[in-house]
């Protein structure tokens, strides 16, 4: 199926679909910003920034509502078919994943507020910082794949999720080692472990968005297609 679609005969319908894509793009930008700032608040223990991220989450929730309303309105008034139907359905899914990703950013900010009084050694941070960079790239790539309807890029995002998991596991072991070295590290390291878990979830949401991108373009499910491709 072609990636670029012809225009609708009804211009206002075309505009509504374009607008839906635009709001998702906007929401994606907001969520990327939230993750970056949430992580930054955590790494710099910036109290104000952490508060800002928590406030920002309300706006993310609002924009998700806007996407859902727009999608429901298109279904009710236009009865979308085929590629249009997939676009509207995946818009709802992607908005949901983005909203959850926004929640993860809020979690990071909350942790920042909790650990700001604790004296953290910089070495504890390195793994979390590395992981944040990786999942932020994953999220961006997944959104790009969705907005440009690029199923190949979507497959790449999904195949890189193993990297995120591997980093999470090694970070888990690393933090465990610090805790065993000195029990006074336990509180800080446990907080960071939760942060790592949140970032790992962001990676999962990025994968979901990439899967939606694949379905949007091909009309098939990536999981099922991958199974068929693998030799028995």
């Amino acid at each position, binding site marked *: *199926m*072609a990636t670029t*679609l*012809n*225009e*609708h*005969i*009804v211009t206002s*319908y075309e505009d509504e679909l374009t607008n839906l894509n635009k709001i998702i793009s906007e929401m994606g930008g907001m969520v990327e910003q939230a993750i970056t700032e949430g992580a930054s608040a955590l790494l710099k223990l910036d109290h104000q920034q952490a508060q800002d991220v928590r406030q920002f989450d309300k706006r993310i929730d609002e924009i998700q509502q806007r996407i859902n309303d727009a999608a429901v309105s298109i279904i009710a008034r236009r*009865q*979308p*078919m*085929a*590629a*249009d*139907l*997939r676009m509207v359905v995946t818009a709802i899914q992607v908005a949901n994943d983005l909203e959850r990703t926004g929640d993860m950013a809020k979690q990071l900010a909350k942790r920042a507020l909790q650990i700001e009084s604790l004296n953290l050694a910089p070495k504890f941070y390195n793994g979390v910082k590395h992981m944040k960079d990786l999942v932020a790239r994953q999220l961006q790539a997944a959104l790009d794949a969705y907005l440009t309807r690029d199923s190949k890029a979507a497959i790449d995002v999904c195949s890189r999720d193993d990297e995120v998991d591997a980093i999470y596991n090694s970070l888990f072991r690393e933090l465990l080692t610090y805790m065993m070295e000195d029990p006074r590290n336990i509180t800080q390291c446990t907080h960071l472990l939760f942060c790592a878990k949140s970032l790992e979830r962001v990676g999962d949401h990025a994968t979901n968005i990439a899967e939606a991108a694949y379905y949007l373009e*091909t*009309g*098939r499910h990536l999981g099922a297609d991958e199974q068929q491709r693998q030799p028995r």
Partner: protein
Amino acid sequence: MTDIAATASEFAAPEEAATVSAHTADASISIPHALRAEVRNLSFWYKEFQALKGIQLPIADRKVTALIGASGCGKSTLLRCFNRMHDLYAGNRYDGEIVLKPEGENIVSRSVDPILVRMRVGMVFQKPNPFPKSIYENVAAGLRIRGINKRSALDERVEQVLRQAALWNEVKDRLDSSAYDLSGGQQQRLCIARTLAPEPELILLDEPTSALDPIATAVIEELVDELRKNVTIIIVTHSMQQAARISDYCAFMHLGQLIEFGETEQMFTNPGNVKTQDYITGRFG
């Protein structure tokens, strides 16, 4: 099999050819139901004008097959071939076969009597066209032609099909009034009852709800849902939503050719051909 692929690729631009033939070929292989009829390499000419070009189409038994496509694509022409309506005008010509299963008779062959074909294949038109007779006589007409004149037998069958057409409760007290006294939706259900009375194997519906309001449309769609348990139905419709709602299989036609055939679910969520997609989503082709 190979013919259908060839037809599709002839039509398609070269870069699309591969997808078209592959998808169409797959769809006709995977039809998991017994067939009631099969269109084989059917072409049709209105005098000099070729309206159908090598159509290949399986019709699944006791399923609803929808024919969709823009005006002038040949879907009504194809539908009318099934009961030899085109025979009414001189100079029209068929080539190829429409085979009724299981006995495998080619109903467009000159050697087959069109009257006998029409007894097996009923048709309902876009505008309700009851006979200028009473409600009762409209339904009984087909039975009388078959030589059924016994009042008790007629009464029984008339009630049965009027019930089947979801019209009985509305007309049981005025069976002798003129069919023209009924509303448009009721007249259309009466026409369906009239079609059902001689127990056809195949029912052709040519945009049966295009002149009806949403409620009357819903009643007819409910009726189609019920009928498919016993009869095979082919429906021509301009409403994509209607095709999506009520059909099991769907065929998309364009300029006299069959572009894509497949399960309705597939056709409306993930059509294989760009032209199908453009048509059902309302884009410029």
